[in-house]
């Protein structure tokens, strides 16, 4: 069976969610691999949520919110931006594949940008294949147990 990427999108209520809505109402077709989770603001998106998404089987993540200076709460996306800069470098330093997380600014008027973003991300993840880094860690423990079993 062909691999269908599971993508979780963490989006802000005011821009990207409305943008996705616009994509819907203007009947733009885009990949169905994405599950959207709506947040009040990008500033609310805790990095642990991203970790949990990967842990629970996501292959790719989209994080998106209002363009700089457009935040409904004035500065939420600026805070978020700093946090993503740091978070990306933590993940990169740990050797985590940061390409699996796509960050973007999508405004309420950018329905097509949203559709393109989802399509591109889906394609990118499709070529990358399923996210197995976390699972492998568990499988390693299982393998060890199987080895022990065989040793018997």
């Amino acid at each position: 069976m062909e691999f269908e990427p599971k993508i979780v999108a963490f989006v802000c209520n005011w821009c990207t969610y409305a943008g996705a809505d616009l994509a819907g109402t203007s009947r733009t077709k885009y990949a169905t691999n994405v599950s959207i989770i709506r947040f009040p603001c990008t500033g609310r998106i805790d990095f642990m949520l991203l970790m949990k998404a990967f842990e629970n089987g996501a292959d790719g993540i989209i994080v998106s919110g209002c363009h700089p200076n457009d935040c409904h709460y004035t500065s939420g996306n600026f805070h978020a931006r700093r946090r993503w800069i740091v978070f990306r470098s933590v993940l990169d330093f740990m050797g985590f594949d940061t390409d699996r997380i796509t960050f973007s600014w999508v405004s309420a008027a950018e329905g097509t940008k949203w559709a393109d973003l989802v399509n591109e991300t889906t394609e990118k993840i499709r070529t990358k294949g399923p996210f197995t880094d976390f699972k492998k860690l568990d499988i390693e423990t299982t393998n060890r147990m199987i080895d022990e079993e065989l040793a018997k």
Partner: protein
Amino acid sequence: MEIKNIKSTNIPAFFDQLIQSGKVVIAPVLKKSGKVFFESVKSYSQVATDYIQTGFSAKSVVFPKVEELFSFVKNEDDIEITNNLQNIPETIVWGLRPCDASAFDYLVEFFLRENPDTYFAARKEKTTLIAVSCAKADDACFCTSVGLNPGSTAGSDILLTLMGEDVYVEVNTEKGKAAVETSAALFTPSEEKSKEEYLAKLTAKFSIDEIKERIKNAYESAEWKHESMGCFGCGACAFACPTCTCFNIEDEGTQNSGKRLRCWDACGFGQFTKHASGHNPRTNQTERRRQRLMHKFKYSVENLGIVSCVGCGRCIRVCPAHLNIFENILSVTK
């Protein structure tokens, strides 16, 4: 008990024979960090020989840091529970120190005397302990103070003592005999010899009988506060300790499928005793550290008749604040 002899040059052959026999062999391995830890090994070349004490104890063989109690899957109308008790492999622990081996005696008493613990029993039954007596000791070692010595045979199935070219082999149990028989040709019979000159010299820091007596009234000592001020409340001492047995039971997964695990826990953690209501019986680090030390030297004596400290010195070596258990005990029992 049987006494045998093996040439030290034959030890690798004996060791590899044990691996050949199909058992999992856990032995001390020198890690990148420069510390020695027990690990599953595949050949004698991996085994560290020059170490005073391993970083963590061998208790994880019978009481792993994370143990799956069972896994469950929710079906339409039922919940299916499975455990893999029967998959526990035969294991040999190589190169643990006599103090560690004697800790197993305590663990057996603790886990099996009353309400026997199924998981511990299953693991212990499949474990053979091959101990190596200590030729060296450091400032943190104090086994002689708690009634043991660098060559005590308590708890081990086999005790090896290096005597120059030869290795003096004390086979203490049937399990030990079975391990020796995997390469019977390498062993020759030997008469009983004194190990004294090959063992580390360690003067006792205190008399255990005196401490046992004095600690009876130590609960109220004002020194507890002073001695535990430096304690950060981490779990390093409890996790490194060969006789610390506290654990936590936690579920992982979802309500549809997952597993119930038992994980090491430590009485030094602030949340250890905290009720759901927010009430915490042991509110400060003084009380928590007192609980740990009193348990080792008083409560376990009262409950099981054994001092549950074997003097391995790990808690002293790993303590971030370099707190010293025997210094503490001496000062609170003054």
